[in-house]
């Protein structure tokens, strides 16, 4: 008997909770669907093979190769794609985590990289520019694509206010056939120093790093990247989670991405 009462209460609460924000939810859903239709194809899967080399106290290296897939956002019809540097090359984060306690050198090398479009086309590509400071990586096809790719217009951007919605688009993994995934999170915090960042809700998990974030008006806000403290995360974190560990997903404003993209477009192909 008691059990039934509790169940009734839960159902009533659930109905109540669902009805109140329904109008706004519909707007949000529609905005998300529109964005999916317009820019869904610009959200791509980056397929990588990373060779990680570890050396302890100067000893010979241990090498390990691994495949991974991360989300990228095409920002130019030529195929120039932006992604989170931490997602495609986690060396810096790993180095930071391992520094100090023992003499370990960790290095990584991207040995294969492909841009996988929504239709399954795979385009061999390379990283042309990195920005460790902003956690940006720019990827460019090795050969010019046969036709211009759908690209996100980074020049038209919006600046959200606190608790505005940020709609993020990412590609799921193979288990979900790399389908487009859209999520919406409210801007929980606006970080102003050392530079402007928007912090979405904790729903923005690391699997969405590299996801473009849009405002309700359909304009881009920026790209979801991983912000980390110099020297890597501190492992003395507490229950507050990632932010206390010195890492947190944040949206880098489109203007900053655009500025770096100009350098990426100019980057020559000369290997160091």
């Amino acid at each position, binding site marked *: 008997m008691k059990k039934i009462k509790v169940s009734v209460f839960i159902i009533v609460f659930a109905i109540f909770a669902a009805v109140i924000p329904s109008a706004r939810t519909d707007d949000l859903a529609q905005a998300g669907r529109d964005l999916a239709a317009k820019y869904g194809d610009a959200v791509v899967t980056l397929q990588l093979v990373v060779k990680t080399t570890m050396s302890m106290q100067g*000893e010979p290296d241990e090498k390990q190769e691994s495949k991974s897939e991360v989300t990228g956002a095409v920002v130019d019809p030529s195929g120039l794609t932006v992604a989170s540097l931490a997602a495609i090359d986690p060396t810096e984060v790993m180095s930071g985590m391992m520094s100090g306690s023992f003499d370990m050198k960790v290095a990584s*090398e991207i040995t294969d990289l492909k841009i996988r479009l929504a239709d399954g086309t795979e385009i061999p590509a390379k990283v042309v520019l990195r920005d460790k400071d902003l956690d940006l990586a720019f990827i460019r096809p090795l050969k010019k694509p046969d036709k211009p790719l759908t690209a996100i217009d980074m020049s038209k951007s919006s600046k959200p206010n606190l608790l505005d919605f940020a709609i993020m688009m990412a590609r799921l993994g193979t288990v979900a056939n790399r389908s487009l995934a859209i999520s919406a999170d409210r801007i929980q915090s606006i970080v102003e120093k*050392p530079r402007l960042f928007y912090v979405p809700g904790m729903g923005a998990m690391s699997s969405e790093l590299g996801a473009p974030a849009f405002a309700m008006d359909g304009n881009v806000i920026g790209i979801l990247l991983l912000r980390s403290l110099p020297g890597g995360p501190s492992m003395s974190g507490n229950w507050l989670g990632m932010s206390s560990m010195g890492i947190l997903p944040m949206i880098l404003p489109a203007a900053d991405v655009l500025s770096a993209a100009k350098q990426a477009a100019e980057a020559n192909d000369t290997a160091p």
Partner: protein
Amino acid sequence: MEKAVAAVKPSLVRIHVVTVEYEQGREIKRETIGSGVIITKQGHVITNHHVAGRAKQLLCTLANKEEIEGELVGTDPMTDISVIKLLPPTKRDFPAAEFGDSSKLKVGDHVLAMGSPLAFSQSVTMGVISNTELVMPEEWHETLEIDGEDVGSMVLWIGHDADIYGGNSGGPLVNLEGKIVGINEIRMGLGGAIPSNLARAVADQLIKNGKVRRAWIGLTVQPLLKSSKQKAGVLVGGVIAGSPGEKAGFKAGDIILKVAGKSVSVKYTEELPPFNQLVAGLPIGKEVEVLVLRDGKQIPIKVVPQEREDVEAKQQELKEWGLCASNVTFMKAKELGRTTRAGVLVRSLREGGPANDAKPALNEDDVIVEVDGKPVANLEDLVRLTETIVKGKTEPTPTLVVFERRSERLMTVVKVGIRELKDPGREVSKAWLPVGTQVLTQDLAKALGLEGKTGVRVTRLYPNFNTGLQVGDIIVALDGTEIPASQPEDIEVLPAMIRQYPIGGKPELTVIRDGKEMKLSVELAASPRPPREMKRYQDVNFDFTVRDVAFQDRIDHGWAETEQGVLVDSISEGGWASLGNLMTGDLIRMVDGQAITGVAEFQKIMESVTKRKQKSIVFAVKRGIQELFVELRPTWARLATPTTNKQKPKEEK
């Protein structure tokens, strides 16, 4: 006991082995240390297969500390015995230890374990024989399997309590008469040694033929069942299809009473190895009579043993496919349920390599049977076809591949060829203030009499940059904008503000120096290039990579600009650089007395070393605060053609 030690110690050998393993679709070199003992005056050394059986290079240290190259004469995974031969610069005799009779050992006899425990130089420990017929207890549900072979099926170990450790493998177990009675192999609480009688017989064959030939009739045998009323005999548990045993008419349930006229009996696990040794010793290709008991009747069966094949075939890395493969052995074909051995067995795959990237991807244990419409009977076929496919191509070639996965016959497209990205992408260049700073925290500001001020304090000046700043300066504003840094976490605030300026820009800093506020115009530099963007040289003969010294290296190590050289960026295990004890992070300052200023110069010298096949090369290196010489001694004779830089493969091993 002293006499026993004196008799064998001069024959002890510490073996430094560069071995080859096949993992994750690559051939990988590893280094290991084991022990051995000289058994002929010509310099034959007996050791374990698991020490030397897959050796690419062998460096033997004798008891007098002399180092001599060795070569593998033959190896036998089934008994875990290998024989190597010492290769002195000039022919000479070596002090050989003598074998004793292991069958005469008794529990409680004193024995000495000799070898190189934990890679130490030749050492001796003492104990007693604990067990003369040690087997893996059934309760452990484990076998000692090496290269697919169950060593325990042939070896009854001599158990002893003389301390042995990693590095003792292959070393002799010696009786107090100074004779070898065993070859130490395992430690399972007690030490376990291969009896000398078996080890000697195997070593003799390896020296004579380079391999051990064994007869095989294809029966699975086991001890008689506990419920069996039979007093003697060996129970046939199964007969392998297609084996000589099946052709001869053996059946599961038969009890073998005699083999080639010799009565046999296996009632206990300990009795299996001698029976297996008996069968392995039958004449290959000659008819043998085996008497079996079947349904209460004694039946003579004539069987023609065939030569036993290794359970696992040798592997080869196929870089163009991103996999390691081998031929299909008889037993593997059975395991895979195949009726033919034709094809190439995939043993491991490189993540993201062409075969792993195919759709569908090839998997371990798949058998490649057709490439580009042409049948693939064995590894040789696949290597030849691969050469044809990649010849003259600069890009991987989509290739139609038919393969078998258990009972399925699948088809895929593999892009055969090598393509590895080597360009990591440049780090974006931004404006940078070339000084080290700390945040002016509220406490610090108060202590310095600057309460209410925010900003940073200059902690170090970098060489070659004349900013006009001094250590101790407090920077409180940039072009009139206050620097809002007041907590340690704000360390990035000023750098982030600086990065908004163009490289070469000259913002005005508001600085407090000695309590007085002043304005200072500072020219911003370009952020230094990170280490990953430094010029590199990979020497594929010596197996190491160096790079130019980056700005960050100088900061990290406190190296002045005058400190020149190349930094060792990576070293591969088993390479000449690794064997010479060069270490990652070493700064190579000089090569053979010639100062080095950078990678370009170093590369020229190394190419010259390769061209001349120089016998040794000496680096003067800086390691931490120490300076030392590192001598590399390449063995050019082991390379068919030394690889010059122009021939440098794109892939590392």
